[in-house]
């Protein structure tokens, strides 16, 4: 197994190309029991296992992944990170995530290509400038970087936008978070997997959970495609399929599974140096290091598990792209794909205990799963190790709708159907 990656190991393998790089993580045969089982080997599951082993000294951990590492949403998102949240319950959590991103490549000894290129969210009316000023002030009061730019400042930074008199949505200004940016998402999955494996975590691929075994109100293990595996602590981190896995334990959740599409164009020379998002429609775009424009918009709008997007949403996202960035009309689309994500009634996630003893839930991430990965892993690991909530996740409980404590960041109620 690979130990440290360094300039010396790089030189060694460059000089001796006949010696292949060793596997980044081990492929163990599953044991009959573990102290903790994490269902789901995506970013959140692997991060949870890593922090459980590193921060809480739990050594006997298995991560069960139904396919291969990197096959799910951790490799399907648009790689954006940001912490421009406004309401209590979200602000500190996503800022914690941002702080963890800042040191992640060193922490994991894996180059995650964390790029703090900054995010520009464009305001298209004077009212929106006011709303962004309020958001920015709230962020700054919480120690998060934010600055408000006027139209001329935006023109200097993003000259390629439509600043003409005929622009359908005239640009009035922008809110800029300089530390926001992008991360190479595959590296996050691989980096966490490798680092967890080096701490003794068993990463078991092609191992699909088919049943959650209970003894009364306690979990005792899981039935999988590779046999029965016992454990008194089980964490679910399978966003996209949370309802499906939770149903194995008899739980019904405030979650619907929806498809979100993403798009990438042919590579061109660098032109877009920030993450650009828009106040007129849900639309976000960045240029990858390879040169392709990576962008996306809304969910398709109805629940599905198919990972196949609908054409009307493709058309809508292309209209957004060409309206905001006229040069996009001359770009050619290279690929588009879909990922299945949990949508919750208030657009916020769950990191919480369940009514079943020893069963912990991490899901409901809506559009924001990737950027949350490190904080989600840290806080979920804390919860599993101590059987109590981390101070940052108190708002992410399952019963918040019963208590009237929705975390409704955008103030639009049930946003699944608001498009």
């Amino acid at each position, binding site marked *: 197994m690979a130990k440290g990656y360094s300039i010396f190991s790089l030189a060694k393998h460059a000089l001796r190309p006949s010696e292949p790089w060793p596997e980044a993580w081990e492929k163990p045969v599953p044991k009959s029991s573990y102290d903790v089982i994490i269902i789901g080997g995506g970013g959140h599951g692997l991060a949870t296992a890593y922090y459980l082993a590193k921060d809480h000294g739990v050594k006997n951990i298995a991560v069960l992944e139904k396919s291969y590492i990197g096959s799910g949403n951790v490799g399907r998102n648009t790689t954006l990170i940001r912490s421009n949240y406004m309401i209590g319950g979200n602000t500190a959590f996503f800022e914690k995530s941002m702080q963890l991103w800042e040191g992640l490549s060193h922490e994991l000894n894996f180059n995650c290509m964390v790029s703090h290129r900054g995010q520009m969210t464009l305001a298209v009316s004077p009212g929106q400038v006011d709303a962004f000023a309020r958001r920015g002030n709230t962020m700054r009061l919480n120690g998060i970087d934010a600055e408000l730019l006027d139209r001329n400042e935006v023109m200097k930074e993003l000259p390629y936008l439509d600043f003409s008199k005929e622009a359908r949505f005239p640009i009035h200004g922008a809110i800029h978070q300089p530390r926001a940016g992008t991360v190479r998402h595959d590296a996050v999955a691989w980096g966490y997997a490798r680092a967890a494996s080096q701490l003794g975590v068993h990463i078991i691929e092609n191992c699909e959970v088919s049943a959650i075994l209970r003894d009364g109100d306690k979990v005792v293990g899981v039935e999988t495609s590779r046999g029965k595996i016992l454990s008194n602590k089980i964490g679910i981190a399978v966003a996209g399929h949370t309802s499906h896995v939770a149903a194995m334990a008899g739980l019904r*959740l*405030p979650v619907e*599974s929806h498809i979100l599409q993403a798009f990438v164009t042919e590579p061109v020379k660098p032109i877009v140096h920030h993450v650009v998002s828009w106040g007129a429609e849900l639309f976000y775009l960045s240029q990858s290091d390879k040169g392709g424009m990576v962008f996306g918009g809304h969910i398709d709008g109805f629940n599905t598990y*198919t990972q196949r997007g*609908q054409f*009307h949403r493709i058309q809508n996202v292309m209209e957004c792209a060409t309206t905001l960035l006229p040069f996009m009309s001359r770009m050619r689309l290279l690929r588009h794909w879909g990922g299945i994500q949990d949508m919750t009634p208030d657009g916020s996630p769950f990191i919480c205990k369940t009514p079943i003893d020893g069963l912990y839930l991490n899901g409901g991430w809506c559009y924001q799963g990737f950027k949350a990965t490190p904080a989600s892993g840290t806080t979920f690991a804390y919860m599993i190790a101590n059987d109590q909530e981390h101070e940052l996740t108190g708002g992410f409980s399952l019963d918040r709708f*019963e208590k009237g404590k929705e975390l409704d960041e955008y103030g639009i109620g049930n946003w699944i*159907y608001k498009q």
Partner: protein
Amino acid sequence: MRIPCPHCGERDVAEFRYGGDASNVRPSHGSGDLKQWHDYKFIFDNPQGPHLEYWQHVYGCRQWFKLNRNTATNEIVGGER
């Protein structure tokens, strides 16, 4: 995906709006059982398979109807008024 509107015939999904799980039964008017209202409003079975759901033909007749669709394949079994 094309959706058979029971009033207008088959049209592209772009003309329609999804309206959620139609198997959830609304509690009777005036019922004060908050748990029942909570479950009606916020809890979804979210099955991977056959699903009875509401759709509205927004850019057509604007009628609401029920549709039986498989969420694993998007195959549509049938619509009803």
